[in-house]
């Protein structure tokens, strides 16, 4: 199961993550940039450390689960 993680800095310089399931692959860097810019520009989200003010990074993460018989 893969997730797209959009990471922002808030006013305190701490990281705030917004994640989405089932990302489009390969990710379109321009579309991701535009989306992150939009989120900052709308300024409608908050975090415990203030507004989202700057893009930090974006990445797709995958979690693999292997059941172990016990």
């Amino acid at each position, binding site marked *: 199961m893969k997730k797209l993680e959009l990471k922002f800095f808030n006013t305190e310089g701490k990281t705030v993550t917004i994640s989405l*399931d089932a*990302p489009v692959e390969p990710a379109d860097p321009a579309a991701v940039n535009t*989306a992150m810019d*939009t*989120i900052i520009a*709308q*300024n409608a*989200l*908050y975090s415990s450390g203030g507004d989202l003010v700057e893009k930090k990074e974006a990445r797709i993460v995958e979690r693999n689960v292997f059941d172990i018989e016990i």
Partner: protein
Amino acid sequence: MAVAQKVDSGLQLVFEDGVNPETGETILRRKSFNNVKTTATADQLFAIASALVPLQQKTLNSIQQKDDLLITES
């Protein structure tokens, strides 16, 4: 008289995630963002939703705003 004051707000993107083979109903999957300012407008949330939806593969069913209202006696 009682008054309602908005104390929390959230954004929910409702995605279609296939069809239930038994009932034929569309399966809906909700993605919630809880850190929405109480001052956020429909325009702002629509812009954010419109920016996020193309980054993923599922079909958008609806955009919902969830507000928590605190009711007190005035």
